[in-house]
Structures are given as structure tokens and as C-alpha cells.
């Protein structure tokens, strides 16, 4: 092709521009977080941690971080437990109306969060329940459920049934088989699903606005509130912290998943090797008597 090198160069340039377009706002936010001036002038003349310092001393923001963490952890724990159970049922059993059940479970992903927010709030009111933290948890469980089901179901389906059947023939009952075989094999996906559930709960804004009780702010609603009347530079600092967090968690998740699948068995193998070595040493003395007395197996 005559235009080969030019085409390649052009494509490379375009790729760079696209990345720049995507990442520039993030970079600007991070840069501004270190600029102590009130008007975000550029290039800046000083560098400081002033906004971070103010952030760390703002009780309202700290409270919202606490709320978001609690909410995220509680709802992710519930979603992961229920979602994995549902995914197992969908992957393994022939339940009547399976397709319908699956559709219902995935609906929160298809419906706009605005409608979810209003809908659940109305339902809650109809049942005469007070608007408490529980509503937020229930809502976030619903929002994060589809994600968890999709991720864990995919993994569960890829685990060959014959592993479970082999465990059963060897004497493990249904629960023991699930604990010893299915759960460890699905663990990487479950861990990742938990983290994704946590992250998407942490990120959820629209529906949360309808569900939060009075005076309870999550990080996103807190940021909304701060931005309502003025530009607040602490937000740049908060955003920087959140960006580090959102990049850090998936990286950690990947490492954790890797560790679960490769490192753990290796560690166990090492421990076993040590045990066997010790065992054969102690057995050496009585080889004669052992060799004679034992059955074939």
C-alpha cells in the first residue's frame, strides 16, 4: 500500500487524540487539586496540599465518605450472597419459569435509575415504611444485583458439572460439594463481582437522591450539594482521592483474583510438601512393620 506509513501515523495520531480527549478532564482535575489559588488559573504559580487538608477536616465530607463506604460494603455483601445463590440456581437447576425469573432479576439494569428511584420510593411509601438507611440498602442491592448475577453466573456455568458429580460420588453431600468445589472454583468471579457491586453502589447518584433519608449524604450527593451554589475547590481534591480509589480497587481486585487462583494452591502445596517430608521422616523407623501389616489400600 503506497499510503502505508502515513496511514499508520495518522491512526496513531488519532488514537492519541482520543485518549487525550478522554483523559484530559481527569488530568485537569488532578492538577487543579494541587493549585492553592481560588480561581483555577493556569499554569499555576504554587503547589500545595491545601485542598486535601481542608477536605480532611470537613466533617460533612468525611461523614458522606463513611456513609458511602458502609452502604457500599453492606449492599455489596448482600448482593453478592443473594446474587451468587441466584446465579447458581439459574446455572444448575431446571426451575420452571427460569427465563422469566432471570428477566426480572436483570430489570434494574435496563430501567433508568430515575424510574427505579421513584418506583422503589413509592412502593416503600405504600407499604408504610419509614425512609431509613434500610431503603438505601434495599435500593442499592437491587441496582447492583444484575451485575453480580451476570458475572457469577457466567463463571458458574463454565465450571464443569462433573467436578461436582465427582465430589458427590466421593461422599460429599450437596452443601459440602458447594463449599469444597463450586465456591473455590467460582471465588475469583465472586470477589470481582463484590468489588464491582461496591464500586457501582459507591458511584450511584440518581436513585440515591430519592432514597436517602433526611441529613444522610453519600459521596455523590454530597458533591452535588457542594456544587449547587459555588465552585468548591475541595471537590478537585476529593475527585483526586476518588480517582486513585477507583483505579486502585480494580487493580487490587485483579491481583486478588490472581492470588486466589494461583498463589493459594501453590502455598497449600508447599505446606503439604513440608508435612509429607516430616511424616516420612517419622515413618522411616517403622517401615518394616507398616509394610507387612497394611492392606492393599
Amino acid at each position, binding site marked *: 500500500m503506497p499510503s502505508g506509513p502515513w496511514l499508520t501515523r495518522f491512526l496513531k495520531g488519532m488514537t492519541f487524540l482520543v485518549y487525550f480527549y478522554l483523559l484530559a478532564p481527569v488530568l485537569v482535575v488532578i492538577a487543579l487539586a494541587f493549585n492553592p489559588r481560588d480561581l483555577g488559573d493556569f499554569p499555576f504559580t504554587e503547589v500545595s496540599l491545601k485542598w486535601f487538608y481542608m477536605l480532611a477536616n470537613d466533617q460533612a465530607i468525611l461523614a458522606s465518605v463513611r456513609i458511602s463506604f458502609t452502604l457500599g460494603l453492606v449492599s455489596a455483601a448482600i448482593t453478592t450472597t443473594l446474587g451468587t445463590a441466584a446465579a447458581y440456581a439459574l446455572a444448575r437447576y431446571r426451575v420452571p419459569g427460569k427465563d422469566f425469573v432471570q428477566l426480572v432479576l436483570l430489570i434494574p439494569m435496563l430501567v433508568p435509575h430515575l424510574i427505579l428511584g421513584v418506583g422503589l420510593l413509592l412502593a416503600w411509601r405504600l407499604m408504610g415504611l419509614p425512609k431509613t438507611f434500610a431503603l438505601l440498602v434495599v435500593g442499592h442491592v437491587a441496582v447492583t444485583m444484575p451485575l453480580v448475577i451476570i458475572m457469577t453466573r457466567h463463571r458458574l456455568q463454565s465450571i464443569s458439572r462433573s467436578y461436582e458429580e465427582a465430589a458427590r*460420588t466421593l461422599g460429599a453431600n450437596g452443601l459440602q460439594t458447594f463449599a469444597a468445589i463450586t465456591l473455590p472454583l467460582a471465588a475469583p468471579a465472586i470477589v470481582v463481582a463484590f468489588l464491582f457491586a461496591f464500586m457501582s453502589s459507591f458511584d450511584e447518584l440518581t436513585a440515591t437522591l430519592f432514597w436517602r433519608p433526611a441529613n444522610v449524604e453519600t459521596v455523590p450527593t454530597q458533591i452535588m450539594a457542594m456544587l449547587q451554589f459555588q465552585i468548591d475547590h475541595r471537590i478537585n481534591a476529593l475527585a483526586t482521592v476518588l480517582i486513585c480509589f477507583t483505579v486502585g480497587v480494580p487493580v487490587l481486585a485483579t491481583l486478588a483474583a490472581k492470588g486466589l487462583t494461583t498463589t493459594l494452591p501453590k502455598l497449600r*502445596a508447599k505446606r503439604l510438601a513440608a508435612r509429607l517430608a516430616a*511424616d516420612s521422616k517419622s515413618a522411616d523407623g517403622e517401615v518394616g512393620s507398616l509394610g507387612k501389616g497394611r492392606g492393599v*489400600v
Partner: protein
Amino acid sequence: MAGAAIEIKGVEKKFGEVAAVAGLDLTVGEGDFVALLGPSGCGKTTTLRMIAGLEHPTAGDILVKGRRVNDVPVHKRNFGMVFQNLALFPHKTVFDNIAFGLKYRNVAKADVVRRVKTALDVVRLPRMEERLPAQLSGGQQQRVAVARAIVIEPDLLLFDEPLSALDAGLREEMRFELKRIQRNLGITTVFVTHDQAEALSMADKVVVMQNGKMEQEGTPDEVYSRPTSEFVARFFGQVNELTGKVVGRRDGIVDVVLGDGATVQVAHEGPVGDTLRLLLRSERVRVGKPGTAEPGASIVKGVVTSSDYLGLMVRYVVNAAGIELAVMQPKLGPLLATGEQVDLSIQPSAWMLLG
């Protein structure tokens, strides 16, 4: 029968409209090695899974040592099973794989280590405890799967085509190994396969199945030499089908005229004038240059019409007085050429008769 390890009585399994097993009766004696043999889809796996308890019969009973086990759950049956894909737990070491069944049997820790080691000795795979299944060769994985099944001292060993994933050389070696292990331990074994050589070489009793039913059962020699149906006859290799008329008889042998006039001797009792349906395995005929016929055999003259060189064996098609006969034999000396005049020699006992 008191000594029966398993009795299968009128067992049927339907998946929706499809009957995978359609009324099967089978008795397996204590310590026997029984092969379930049949073409793909004939219900072998389903039968084995019903014995294991992984599938529930829609009709009929399964008895183990005289006790009905239809409602005994899988994990309480104490049967060792080796799956077609082996199903070694990928996240567990060889040791933990083999020790798995002992965990649920309240075996003391020291005994677990000893029994796992002994099982690994039995399958001749010592010092592999720390490996993960992915770090083993196909043959080694096979041995671990067997060790895992025998370490629990099962009342019954079940194999579902465990050798089909191995290459030819290893398959033969493992055939021998499995037979050795089974004989040493004396565990009653049911072995599913669609490979006739596997069934004939390993089993004490071969059960040939078709369409979810038993077609014939017997020792390897019985099903091979005295098939009761054309299906069974054809299952063990290429078979020539002929008709002939009995023209003479003397103590256990009849003279039979085939199609266009060649006369052969057949081991058979029957009146003169009968028309017989005869089957003849291609490997039970010898073909050679005129004058090389075996003693005691009937000789039929013919012309070679084609030859296939298969390495160890050669397959000839010979036209004998208008009848095409397939002959399979080891290559002895030079290949016979197409168009060459030959003598076919057939022993009277080589013929199979269908009732």
C-alpha cells in the same frame, strides 16, 4: 442370586420422550469386571450414571448386594467413579484430590496420609502429591483419577470411557494397568466403552447394548465367536454375510453349497436341505496363492479384486464364484496383486450361524 454385587431389574430412563435406557436387566457378580459396550447414544453412560445415583431411573430397580438403592443419594453409595473427562479438581493438589473422599469418612489424619500414599503406589505414581492436575501428563492424570476412586475402598468401581482421551499407545498401556489394579484389588467394576478391543481385552463379561437394551451378554469369546444377532456380529469388525444350502452331514459338520456352487464345511447340526444364514468374520478367512491352504479348512477358489494395505494388516476383497468376500489378514510375504488367482481357506468353526 446371593453373590450378585449389582442387579438391575427392568430399569428404564426417559428424558422427556426419549428413552435412553429402555428396560434393562443385568446382573454383575461380586468381583467381576463387566464392560458395557455399544455404539454412541445406546445408553451406556445413562446406565452407569443410574448405578452411581447421578441419574434416577423412571422405572425399575437397582439392587446392590440385594438391597434396593434407588433412593440412596449419590454420596451415601460408596462407589468410586472415574469420569470420561476425569474431573480432577483443578484447584486441589494431587494429594488433596485423592484425600477428598477420606475427608467425609472420618479417617484419622495419619491414616489419610498413609492411604493416599498406598493408593499412589497402587497406580504407580509415587512422589506426585504436591502437583496440581494441570502439571501432570494425560496418563498421570488418569492414574490420579483412579487413585482417587479406589482410596475410599469402594464397593463398586465405575468407569465411563476413561481411556478415550488418551492416544493409542498410552491407551493400551492404561488398559493393562486398569486391569492389573482391578484384579489386585478385586473390586467389582463396570466399565463403559464403545471400543470393542477395550471391552474384549479387559472384561470378564461383555454386555453389548443397542437402543437402550441389552443385545447380548457373555464372556469376550462368547460375544465375539457366537453372536446371537447380526448387530453383535457386526460390532466386532467386518463380517461377510452369505446364504447356503445344506447338502450333506456327518458328525457335527455339514456340507453347505454357497451361492454359485462352492462347497464348504460348517460346524453345525441340521437336516439336509436347510437354508442357512451364515456370517463370516473377515479375519477368520485366510487367503493365499493356490496350494497354500490350511489343513482341515474348506478351500474356495477366487480372484483378488482389490487390496488395502493397512500397515499391520491387509484387507483384500476376493471374488469367489460370484460372491464378494472381505478378508483381513496380516501381511505374510508379498502383497497379492489384483486379478491374481487365490485359494481362500475357511475352518468349519469359523462360520457363525444366526438362528
